[in-house]
């Protein structure tokens, strides 16, 4: 298909903007809280499209935001990561029982990290892992990386915290008076 543009993913730019000093993130907010995070490498973005370099960018962003010591990788990871079961249309296919069975491996992988949160890079991953967290009783919150970037920058409003757990609902709130 004829096109005059390049296709890129925003993780690469998050990393670039942090390196260039345009996004002045830091992990001070988590210095004492010590909340642990793991991250899902989306198949579509990592294994299928951009490969390990973008997985490194993603880790650089996450570590910059939550603190290196508060990041724990799943095993296996990067291009070798397991799919969570949210892709390929599975979420809309009607085979819910099989989808949850598929995701059991992912849930176990997340639990084995001991992390409090799972960062999900894509929407299908987010929806699926969120459901796995509830279904298998892990109850770990599943968050977007943009939420954590803004939390770290102190610009995350009270109504932009849908997916944060109770431990972070009140942390670094921007304009708390606007809570709905």
């Amino acid at each position: 298909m004829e096109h005059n543009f390049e296709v890129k993913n925003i993780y690469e730019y998050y990393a670039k903007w942090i390196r260039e000093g345009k996004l002045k993130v830091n992990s001070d907010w988590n210095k004492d809280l010590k909340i642990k995070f793991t991250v899902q490498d989306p198949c579509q973005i990592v294994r299928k499209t951009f490969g390990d370099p973008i997985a490194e960018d993603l880790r650089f962003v996450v570590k910059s935001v939550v603190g290196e010591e508060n990041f724990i990788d799943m095993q296996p990871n990067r291009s070798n990561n397991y799919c969570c079961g949210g892709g390929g249309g599975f979420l809309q296919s009607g085979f819910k029982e099989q989808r949850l069975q598929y995701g059991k491996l992912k849930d176990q992988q997340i639990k084995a990290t001991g992390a409090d949160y799972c960062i999900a890079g894509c929407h299908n991953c987010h929806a699926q892992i969120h459901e796995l967290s509830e279904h298998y009783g892990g109850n770990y919150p599943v968050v977007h990386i943009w939420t954590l970037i803004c939390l770290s920058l102190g610009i995350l409003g009270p109504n932009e915290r849908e997916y944060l757990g109770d431990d972070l609902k009140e942390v670094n709130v921007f304009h708390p008076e606007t809570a709905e």
Partner: protein
Amino acid sequence: MAEEVIKLGGKKKSYFIDKVKEILPDGGNLNLCLTCGACSSGCPATGLDNMDPRKFLRMAALGMDEEIIKSDWPWMCTMCQRCIYVCPMKIDIPQLVYNARGLRPRDQRPKGILGSCDMALRNESTSAMGISPDDFVFVVQDVLEEVRESQPEFADMEAPIDKEGAEFFLNQNSREPVTEPNELLPLWKILHLVGADWTYGSHGWAGENYCMFLADNDSWEKITRTTVNQANKLGCKIFLNTE
């Protein structure tokens, strides 16, 4: 001992696996399987519907096309490509799965995926949730106006739609504008702080493409073309996936 060479009867039947080989570079290596099982041992879909990737490939190789058409397993494989990644012969099983999805008549494919594809075909948004370009523009402007007022530090933040010559053409999963518009804000704030020159398209803004998952090639192409045309028309240099 027979006097004559025994001839096998009939014209050679055309099998599903041959059709897939035709459309793949090097036939997708579909006849190079060593049956080592690395694919199946690391596949989360192994065991679902009494199937696994190695077995699926063997069934295709044996010409068990009827069984493949009947199997629901192609809808339980996400085509994540981990099997290719770990395969010593780099066999493209996901392409086999994708094409197996297309063996069924369109109206017999899973209703949810079918419905999401049809929604996206309804208008130029290409959204699986069916929201129109006008509604999308309204939501974006509404959310923007509210945050400009309630968070004055962002009074000059923008969320452009159809801005010509913008560097980045952004797509957006429909879930935010339709069900949780406040979740749009963190992304916009980041783009604002770094001074990014970006835009959404009123046409083709939606990031998802369920027609692809449906294995409906014509509709998949139509959706993608709508998006690509919009980005081309606006003269954007970079198509930026936000997920």
